[in-house]
């Protein structure tokens, strides 16, 4: 039986399959469907310093092989998370990684600082790529300077594994990846959603209350795979890949392109058991090809 363990910085995952922030709630929502302990990790919903109501309804539109969302980081804030959610979810037999979002550098720093004290909270994912908030969010992720700045600031207060989540809405994602690597990121995760839009032609209104929103799902997979490959070839830190993964074959594709671990996002909505199926599929693929460890497959596309 092939080895499935992978490391992201100091973070040890029992297998490379994790679930993407904003698509898996706090894990609890999936407890009825799967054994959460069989996952490598769970990236919980974007968490901010203060509670947020998110954007107005409608927040969702279906698109060809994907969806747009403009949830806008609705969450009850980091204090509520620590007091009410953390005590429950820290009991899960998997890694819980908080996705940290903010409008200002101070927000990110203050939130990360609070999370640093929690044991059983081995890592955070710095979300500098959310397209659905007016201030901050994606704007940090689209320039090397601001991406490096927020990464460096959080690095100073957060000693555990820090993963920085990159925006695909840029000319060169590998430049941004190099900038955050230089600023102390232990890993980069990509991609967040693509900025998109849809219009109802009868009402002539945008389908989302915010006009634009984030595109996710299988439609984005070819672009996401390309970005993972570019970033894998540009940085030394491990890459966590995602974007449209809907089966184990997609997961293998991302691993071959250079992902040390993968996140399953939107497809959890369609098949809430997909993440465990992917764990099984990867294992069988490795066995079938006599590959001793999934680590031996990372970035091993033949050129």
């Amino acid at each position: 039986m092939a080895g499935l363990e992978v490391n992201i910085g100091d973070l040890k995952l029992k297998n490379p399959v994790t679930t993407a922030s904003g698509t898996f709630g706090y894990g609890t929502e999936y407890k009825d469907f799967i054994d959460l302990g069989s996952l490598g990790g769970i990236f919980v919903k974007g968490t901010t310093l203060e509670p947020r109501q998110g954007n107005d309804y409608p927040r969702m539109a279906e698109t060809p092989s994907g969806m747009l969302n403009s949830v806008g980081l609705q969450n009850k804030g980091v204090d509520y998370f620590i007091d009410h959610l953390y005590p429950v979810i820290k009991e899960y037999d998997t890694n819980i990684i908080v996705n940290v979002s903010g409008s200002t550098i101070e927000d990110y720093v203050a939130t990360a600082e609070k999370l640093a004290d929690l044991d059983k909270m081995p890592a955070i994912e710095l979300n500098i790529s959310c397209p659905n908030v007016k201030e901050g969010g994606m704007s940090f992720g689209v320039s090397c300077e601001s991406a490096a700045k927020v990464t460096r600031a959080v690095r100073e207060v957060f000693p555990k594994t820090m993963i920085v989540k990159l925006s695909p809405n840029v000319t060169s994602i590998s430049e941004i990846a190099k900038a955050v690597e230089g600023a102390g990121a232990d890993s980069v995760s990509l991609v967040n959603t693509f900025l998109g839009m849809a219009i109802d032609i009868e009402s002539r209104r945008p389908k989302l209350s915010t006009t634009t929103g984030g595109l996710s799902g299988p439609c984005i997979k070819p672009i996401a795979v390309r970005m993972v490959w570019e970033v894998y070839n540009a940085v030394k830190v491990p890459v966590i890949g995602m974007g449209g993964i809907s089966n184990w074959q997609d997961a293998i594709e991302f691993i071959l392109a250079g992902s040390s671990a993968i996140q399953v996002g939107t497809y959890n909505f369609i098949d809430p058991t997909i993440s465990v199926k992917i764990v099984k599929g990867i294992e069988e693929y490795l066995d079938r090809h006599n590959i001793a460890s999934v680590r031996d497959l990372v970035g091993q596309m033949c050129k």
Partner: protein
Amino acid sequence: MKVLDFIVRSNEPLNDKNHLIKVTPENGEPLPEMFPGQFVQILVNNSHDVFLRRPVSINNIDLDNNELWILVKRVGEGTEKICNLVSGDTMNIIFPLGNSFSIPEKKTNTLLVGGGVGTAPLLFLGKKLSEKGYKPAFLLGGRTESDILQLSDFEQYGDVYCTTEDGSFGEKGFVTGHSVLQKNRFDFIYTCGPKPMMVAVAKHANSNGIDCEASLENLMACGFGACLCCIEKTVRGNVCTCTEGPVFNIKELTWLD
């Protein structure tokens, strides 16, 4: 909550748009207890365009046959594909989802007001109320006679009043104009249907001091609380329609502002 393959036992067109589809778990396992107002999320196969599941109310649970009933109206590609299924086809379903209508503790005069395919969850609710020994009344609205669905099923559980916009059946006009609302006294109104209808019903209930619950049909991506797409603005802030609804007491909603 579970995700399970179901087999289509029957698919009966009720009119040119609406189908009553009865399904049973493929593996034969007995259906768990489910409550009126709850819904299911259906995976649509064999479609180019449908990516997300489609939410559909529980129309009835037939324990004797271990069948779940759904009433589906063709409005687009997803419901079209569901309506095209034939006996023996399978359908992957996540169920049961959402909260449910509240069943009063004591005998109450209830009125169940539905429009179009919005009557779907009211049949199951009527059955439960009737099992409790309360005799519910039904007020069903449609554009024309053929829009009134499952009439004889409803009649098993209580009096049925109808309105049609063209006057072809029952009283002419909208549900909120039906004379029964003036003649009879109701203590609890449940409603499901097009939003303008539900808002009108809610206003009637509110101004007459009648308790009222409405079942919402917000756009959903997941259906089980994971995506936060289906929110409704309430007096408590934004809440998920799929987990804290689809049934809301109208006092919680901001419709009456």
